[in-house]
């Protein structure tokens, strides 16, 4: 008992420590503890918009393949895809997954953050770009979630319903028109804008200059949207084309919407597979090669090449660019058949056919073009030819030739690209296969639209359906005879939507006619 004082001290200390540990408050400081000191929890919405602007939604193997510009003939294992008219989830979902949980999520969130903000230019830019993304979704899948989309966090909508494709188009039209009208040259300058901001490929420093570019972009998209109605409602197509034309569309390559990559940290993801994963599997499609070859197209060398070893194109620093030596892989022919006559057989570790020129168009440093003056001018050519905008054939020819030259000029921006001489351009424009011909104008114009969209497969494919695949170079793909007419008209929805968003998915399938497949048509693609 000699140490009773000492013991009491110890006891008291144990109790005191326990009490302090615990009863200073059973949930005291919990809010502070549960706040991550390192996380970014508020953000400038313009940075989210910038992040969304460089999201690429699709690769070579889907839309470009349907448009018969590109082929992966390897059919063994799991790589059956559009070249074999196969409805393969992994191929169908690229655009969906790049858009909804990618660019759209960030843009829709940014718009929610901007609610009540006076940054009318930033808001309008996001609305325009969002409309562009949704247009791609509608063109690809038809009815898609629109009004409910991207709102899990902001509005608690986890299972968006699908909206009617025509209704979405109507709303996109409204979005474009409202945004174009709302933009204010004296308003906010969006420095972060990757297209026309301070660090853009085409830099600007004032709101006025930036707004001017965006208005042209908005109207060019309105023109694109309007032209989609060609088959389904030509009066509407005419009205929108004229409205866009009057509003002021792109007028030179200085209006182009594109981003550049440094090739190290940021690369053109679209070109990742064809350069990095088994290049031997990827080739240019025969219809496309034949078009460039027969017309002696000056773009050919930037687009395609024959490499000594198709499996290691990097090793070949002087690939064969001669027009005459280019051969495309016929569509719908499997790789095992390609190795035997009448096909061209093996070359190195791959097949004896032309590939995308991975030193230029196919490079990891190739820029990504979304909306170009070339596209716009070619659409104007068609509108003029159809008499929807003033000028008739004369104007159509000018728009046509401007479009071709503008597209040729974009290749100066590609790695190993160069400015094509004026003489060569003139020679090309006077080539009988290319020269404007009123009797054959729509075919000529849209064939050039096809070429101008080699790096933009979604647009190439949408336009083919809009004008009913009217050019001579294309061939029907009858690989498994399960597509009516041999062309894919639509991609099917991701399989997982059937389980992740069941009720809305099945309602949508019902709404598009009962079958979620590759031959159901989107609303503007009437037979």
């Amino acid at each position: 008992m000699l140490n009773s004082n000492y013991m009491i001290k110890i006891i008291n200390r144990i109790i005191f420590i326990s009490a302090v540990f615990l009863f200073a408050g059973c949930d005291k400081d919990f809010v502070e503890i549960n706040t991550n000191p390192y996380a970014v929890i508020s953000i400038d919405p313009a940075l989210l918009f910038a992040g969304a602007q460089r999201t690429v939604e699709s690769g070579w193997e889907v839309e470009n393949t349907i448009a018969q510009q590109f082929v992966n003939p390897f059919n063994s294992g799991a790589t059956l895809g559009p070249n074999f008219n196969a409805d393969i989830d992994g191929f169908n979902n690229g655009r969906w997954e790049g858009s909804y949980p990618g660019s759209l999520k960030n843009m829709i969130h940014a718009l929610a953050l901007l609610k009540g903000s006076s940054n009318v230019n930033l808001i309008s830019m996001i609305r325009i770009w969002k409309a562009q993304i949704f247009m791609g979704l509608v063109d690809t899948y038809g009815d898609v979630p629109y009004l409910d989309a991207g709102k899990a966090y902001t509005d608690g909508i986890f299972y968006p319903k699908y909206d009617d494709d025509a209704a979405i188009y109507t709303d996109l039209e409204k979005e474009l028109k409202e945004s174009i009208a709302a933009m204010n040259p004296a308003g906010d300058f969006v420095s972060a804008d990757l297209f026309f901001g301070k660090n853009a490929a085409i830099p600007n420093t004032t709101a006025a200059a930036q707004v001017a570019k965006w208005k042209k972009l908005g109207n060019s998209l309105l023109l694109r949207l309007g032209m989609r109605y060609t088959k389904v409602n030509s009066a509407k197509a005419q009205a929108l084309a004229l409205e866009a034309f009057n509003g002021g569309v792109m007028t030179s390559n200085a209006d182009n919407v594109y981003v550049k990559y440094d090739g190290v940290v940021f690369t053109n993801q679209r070109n990742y597979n064809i350069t990095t994963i088994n290049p031997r599997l990827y080739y240019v499609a025969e219809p496309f090669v034949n078009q460039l070859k027969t017309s002696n197209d000056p773009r050919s060398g930037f687009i395609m090449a024959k490499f000594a070893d198709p499996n290691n194109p990097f090793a070949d620093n002087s690939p064969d660019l001669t027009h005459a030596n280019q051969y495309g892989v016929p569509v719908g022919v499997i790789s095992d058949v390609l190795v035997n006559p009448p096909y061209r057989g093996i070359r190195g570790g791959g097949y004896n056919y032309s590939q995308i020129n991975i030193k230029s168009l196919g490079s990891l440093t190739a820029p990504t073009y979304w909306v170009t003056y070339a596209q716009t001018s070619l659409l104007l050519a068609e509108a003029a030819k159809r008499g929807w905008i003033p000028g008739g054939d004369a104007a159509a020819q000018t728009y046509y030739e401007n479009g071709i030259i503008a597209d040729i000029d974009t290749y100066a921006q590609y790695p190993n690209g160069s400015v094509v001489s004026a003489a060569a351009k003139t020679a090309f424009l006077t080539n009988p296969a290319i020269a404007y011909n009123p009797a054959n104008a729509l075919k000529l114009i849209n064939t050039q639209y096809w070429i101008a969209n080699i790096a933009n497969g979604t647009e190439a494919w949408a336009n083919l359906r809009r004008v009913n695949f009217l050019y001579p170079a294309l061939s029907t793909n009858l690989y498994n005879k399960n597509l009516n007419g041999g062309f894919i008209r639509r991609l099917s929805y991701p399989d997982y939507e059937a389980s992740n968003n069941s009720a809305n998915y099945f309602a949508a399938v019902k709404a598009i006619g009962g079958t979620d497949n590759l031959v159901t048509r989107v609303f503007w693609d009437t037979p």
Partner: protein
Amino acid sequence: MRNVFSLPLIYLSRVLFLFTLFTIVSVNLFAQKTVSGTITSEDNKPVSSVSIKEKGTSGGAISDASGKYKIDLKNSKSILVFSLIGYASQEVSVNNLSVMDITLYPDIRSLDNVVVTALGIKKESRKLGYATTTVNTEDLLTNRTTNVMESLEGRVAGLNITPPAAGAGASTQIRLRGQVGFAGSTNSPLIVINGLPLDQEARNAEGGFDLGRDPANTQQRDRGDNLQVVNPDDIESMTILKGSTASALYGSRAAAGAIIITTKSGSKNKGIGVEYTSSYTTQDALNFMDQFQTMYGLGQNGLKPISQADAAGKGQFGWGAKLDGSLVPTFDGTMQPYIAYENRLFDYLQTGSNFTNTVALSGGGANGSYRVSFANTDAKGIEPRDEYKKKIFNLGLNQKITDKLKLNVNINWSNEIQSNAPQIGVQGPGSVNFFTRIAPSISLSSLKNSAVNPIDGTEARTSSFQNTLQNPYYANQAGQNWVNERDRILGTATLRYDFTDWLYLQGRYNYNQSISNIESTIPYGIGTSVPKNADNTYKGFYNITEEKRREINADFLVGGNKEFGKFSVDASVGGNTWRIKNNAFTQGATNFIVKDLYSIGNGNVKSQSYAFSNRRVNSLYGLAEFGYDRFLYINVTGRKDWFSVYNSSNNQVFYPSVSGSFIFSELLKNQKWLTYGKLRASWAGTGSANGVDPYEGILNYDINAFNFNGQTTATIAGVNAPNVALTPFSVDEKEIGLELRMFKSRVNLDISAFKKVTTDQVLPVTVSNTSGYLGTKANLASLQNSGLEAMLEVKAIQTKNISWTSSWNNTYLSTKVLAISPGVKDFLLLFFNSTGVEFLGQIHYTEGLPMNQLYTRTYLRDANGNILVSPAGRLLATPDFKPVGSSIPKFTGGWTNNFTYKNFSLGIFIDYKFGGTVLSSTALNLLRQGMSKASLVGRRDGETGLIFPGINQATGQPNTTKVTDLQGFYTDYRNLQIGDPFIFKSDFIKLRNISLSYNLTNLAKKVSYLKSFKGLSLTASVRNVAILYKDIPGLDPEAIQSSGDIRAGYENTSLPTVRSYNLSLNVKF
């Protein structure tokens, strides 16, 4: 909270203080007569901690370490009551004696039956109203496994151990009474080591594609679990608290039960002892792979390869020509005979081993004891270069500071170095993936000697599945390297003060810190023929990750017990704070400038990240036990937890339990056959806060590490939408049990029935990605685990020289999903074919069905059940995925037989599991790639195609259309996701273990220079002796990849299982 609880505590501390003072003073004031003496046991050893009470007064004393006691009496004619748990109480009249020596005898009705329960509280088994099992630690030593839990497979009713086939340092799956939550939640029991609670943390291989996505390679390699730090030689006792009543005092950590481990800390008055144990194990891969076809070689369409390029393009297919021994081109350009090599995987694998040495030093004096041990393990897996080394240092210390104040310290430090743990359950890397899916006619020597493309050092292309079939020889030769070093320290200090013999206060501080460092190098040429990037740098990855985790558990407990005539009360209150801080640095580099140099500095593109989290749970709890006449007991407990990770409006939960035991044999003392009989019943409400991480409720943003052409860009961080409304989930468990010991404990039976309902789980919910997010978390779904556990032990022979004990345990488990959420009856957890790693099937939770339900499409059938085929003779699938079985076995159990003859003891152990389902990716791949015997159907001798037995869908007549494209036909199984041929029962009966021990102590003592030996024994054992029954062909049903639940029923490129041979030597001196 602060106001409500802090004041009472301050008062309580003052009351305790005064009370203590009063007690100490009163003893001195009222002493009138003193009795002293020594208490010994039957074998004349001093017995400490015996409670001595003067009947009818409050006076009492406790015997010290040497069995001595001294008590001051009020009345010199009093009766003294001597009592200690495990011994029969004695009442002795003082009769004016001043010295009384007492011998205590064991209480035969509660032999060995002091159980360590939750919070480390020791209780007599009779008082418990729930089931516990105390593990026979001897079994851990005679059935050694690298991970201590693996040796308990099949041995304890209610405990289901499932070791994956995942390499030398792998984790095990531990499930008590089923699976408390859906796959993905923490379903393994709480592990409590010397009072320190920690999660098992099975770092299992849950599948992840190699290149780029997971540069640290953590998802494709099993990185062990926290039980790896426990050395079986250090274990003093291990108690399995099966149900949640047993673990209820752990509140939100109690849902899955608990395993309480106490390590040795020496014994008092023992002097210095040294113990040395050496154990050597070798392991051979078990080859059940009798499924490879040896008739056809590399190629497609029945053709031989015609060129090197052709061979390299079709290496993934066994659809070539008939093997004829002729010379054909191979991928490396040589001409080689067209023959089959069926044993390549097993020729590639090596013999595994484990060499463990433990040395322990222990000692004890009058006031304390200690034990310190050091163990070194050096193990090699069957996969070449798979190495696992661990060192465990363990210290246990008991010290009496004063008569009433005791200090107990335990420190466990471990260091594990795991190198090149096998890559399993993935496409791409992994030897099993490669050797089961590469054409049978490629020789192992070619794959080994021509793995590297001599031109540019990339992996020589062996197939068109270049990135998904990676030659492991290339990885080995090109310097792929992966090392995970982990250091962990577990420290516990407990200070206990006994105010009187019936009131104590205990404070405890636990510290658990771990540091894990992973370094991973993936050489540039793996899975590609293109060595460089577009910027002319080399491909490849280098990644270094360091994770530090620090947990503190501090608790206190005030406890007291009192008897009032036939009534007894034992009550305690306590509190705990649990604080966890994690941080992790990751640095990665790619685009290497100098060839073959993998470092951060050499990488042109670098990435780094820092993760941090901080979390806290505070708790208050209390327990009370009421007894009547030593045969009726009621226990109640309650605990309230406060969580930092939840929103303040829903951050607290109360967890109650009540249990009762009735020792009816006390009322049937005339029934001589009945030694002991007890009925028990309990109910508990526990739960789990797992599934929610710190900061999850707050949306945040990632600012891109690199400016895009000079412009900062940002995105929303993560793919899940935060949900602030989450609450912890709850578990409600009812249990009844019967325990019988008959015929002088020769026949013992223990039966429990339980029903456990889990509600409001925190589950990751996959939402439509059109919402912008891939998922969120929500409280939903309820499920039920119910079952019957039985243990029957018969001590058939017990003579001086010979004994035979036979014991059988069996668990019947029934699981059921009760509900998902209103309007939703099914929850898809994972579509395996969309992972890029697996090939077939889905895992679902469906209302009314057992848990972990595997789904596939199946053959399309007509109304009569006949299989339908298309007019072209091809397969047709049901449009929907259908449930094909649960991965969870319904029956698990084991039968142990221990024989002893003089100094020999022999253990034979058989265990079994029945009623589970397994889906085999390997069987599918072998079939579609033309590798398996099953793929021969249609091309056997005389066959020119396959007329699949079925009904033509168009005509309704038997199919007569012959399919000649066999590859296309069999590939349809994958494309259409038809699972029928790949669904198997995971049932097995295994002769798990045979061990033979020989105690040489007496023999040794006859040798003069070995006289100092206190013990010497040798044990030899064989593990996985034979599979007596199984359903799945070609594989061991236990050859599964992961110890998690997501892929529990999924067989996909795990390693073969092993048979191990062990020899151990134990010396004490």
